[in-house]
């Protein structure tokens, strides 16, 4: 391709005029000066925070009554031609909880606008129990606001309308058991400019067996469906080393770890290098089933057998350090979803065929000197790094 003509054409697409001007410089020096005195400004920050709390309180009161009742912008979101229409739920007050939950999940995965979601919530006789501004972010010269809203769906009772749920959030298991609430739904929204987008949804309900179930869906992780855990508030009983490893990842005390923490755990590093010998993880399989967000696993002188690892559904990256994997045979069953494998500091002495048995793998870090036929990996399209 003609390098110069493509360069000129790309530059035409970006813009004929210079993008970098003195205004960028001025803005930088202004920003730099503004951001520099971080700690001496602590009293001012406290004042600003107090002002923010007062203002956000007023804002909350204002928005709480207004959120779904009126369109938030003059752009008439209902008429948005690009919006996907969620399937119309057809709730029946007599139908079992799990059927209602499935219908709500169907609405959520259609990524509805807030007004469409409001229609679904009304159809299911849900009430809003809390609405708050959780965070703000600036980008693009605009302010984007991240909202959290909780809804309660109660069973219809003979004696008339059930009072709105006003207990703690997320609701405890007892609130479901004593009939105060049938389904709890938490939604996270991002609002900016003319759009409001659903970002995350969490459902809580009692199963037919009487277990509290938590299900979570993140819109930006579309390849992942709802993730689910049974009895999320139940404390986790595991070996001290693993509990401490999980605690480091989720920034909690080891004895405060619950099954909910396992559900949202994204990275886990187990470092047993201070122990003599290899530390073999042997825990309840249910805990591994709960680790549905676990994406990155690093094991230093520790090993989790394949039969446990295979219960972690979305594991993407694994690193082994120390004398734990000679030929991957003990772990390969649990590594079929990973795309990245780091064996550079491991005892791996296997073959390219062993590595090629990991069906999703794209990138492997391994010393070519210990894998004589490592070219086979490259031939199969694998990215080999060392």
């Amino acid at each position, binding site marked *: 391709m003609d390098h110069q003509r*493509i360069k000129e054409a790309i*530059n035409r*697409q970006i813009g004929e005029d210079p*993008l970098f001007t003195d205004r*960028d410089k001025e803005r930088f020096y202004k*920003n730099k000066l503004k951001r520099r005195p971080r700690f001496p400004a602590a009293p001012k920050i406290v004042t600003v925070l107090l002002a923010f709390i007062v203002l956000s309180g007023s804002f909350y009161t204002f928005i709480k009554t207004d959120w779904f009742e009126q369109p938030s912008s003059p752009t008439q979101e209902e008429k948005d031609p*690009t919006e996907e229409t969620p399937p119309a739920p057809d709730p029946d007050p007599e139908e079992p909880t799990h059927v209602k939950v499935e219908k709500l999940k169907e609405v959520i995965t259609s990524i509805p606008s807030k007004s469409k979601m409001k229609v679904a919530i009304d159809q299911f006789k849900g009430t809003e129990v809390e609405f708050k501004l959780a965070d703000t972010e600036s*980008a*693009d010269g605009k302010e984007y606001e991240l909202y959290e809203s909780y809804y309660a769906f109660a069973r219809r009772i003979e004696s008339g309308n059930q009072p709105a749920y006003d207990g703690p959030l997320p609701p405890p298991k007892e609130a479901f058991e004593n009939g105060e609430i049938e389904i709890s739904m938490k939604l996270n929204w991002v609002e900016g400019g003319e759009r409001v987008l659903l970002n995350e949804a969490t459902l809580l309900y009692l199963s037919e067996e009487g277990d509290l179930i938590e299900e979570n869906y993140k819109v*930006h992780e579309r390849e992942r469906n709802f993730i689910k855990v049974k009895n999320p508030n139940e404390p986790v009983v595991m070996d001290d080393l693993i509990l401490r490893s999980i605690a480091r990842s989720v920034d909690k005390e080891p004895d405060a770890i619950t099954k909910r923490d396992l559900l949202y755990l994204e990275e886990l590093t187990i470092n047993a290098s201070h122990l003599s010998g290899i530390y073999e993880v042997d825990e309840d399989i249910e805990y591994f089933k709960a680790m549905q967000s676990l994406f990155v696993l690093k094991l230093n002188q520790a090993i989790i057998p394949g039969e446990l690892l295979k219960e972690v559904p979305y594991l993407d990256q694994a690193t082994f350090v120390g004398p734990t994997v000679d030929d991957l045979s003990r772990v390969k069953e649990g590594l079929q979803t990973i795309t990245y494998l780091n064996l550079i500091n491991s005892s791996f002495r296997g073959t390219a065929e062993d590595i090629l048995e990991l069906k999703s793998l794209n990138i492997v870090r391994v010393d070519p000197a210990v894998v004589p036929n490592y070219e086979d990996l490259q031939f199969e399209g694998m990215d080999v790094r060392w």
Partner: protein
Amino acid sequence: MSVHTQTHYTREEAVEYIMDQYGESLKRTIFTYVKNHHTTDDIFQDVLLQIYRKWDRFNGNSQLKTWAMRIAINRCKDYLRSPIHRIKIATDKWREQKDPHYTEQKVVQKEQWDEIAEAILHLPVKYREVMILTFQQDMTQKQIAEATGTPLSTIKTRMQRARQLLREKADEGGIDPWIINE
């Protein structure tokens, strides 16, 4: 500036130098990721602040431009992963459908090279970046590998795949295939 390290220049001097020497090319590269001038301005400011703060970590092992480019690319990728980016995409699509002028602009006849440039800007990010850094920033594949933190072999594969995608685009019509095969 033959050797650019924190031992030779203060962070203020370094940022001033980067703005003067590479400001335009950094902003143009940022634009090819985010495709919006306001966002480009904001990200460029973030990049300058990061350069200012991280200057003492620059050890001179890579070229100054490559180092600054890496910071810019990482910041762009963070932005593309954010929910705010998704909200913008939705807004832009909505605007595109509502605004007749926007649509008119898109059907204006273009030169073949402009068609290619537009096709490049519509490639998925990982293929777009190798094309942009090669053609628009005149970077070698080794420099691209360094700036994007990607192995050289992967960059080579992505370049081949990017050309293949452009060829497929040409087959669909609109672009003369000889331009790409040349």
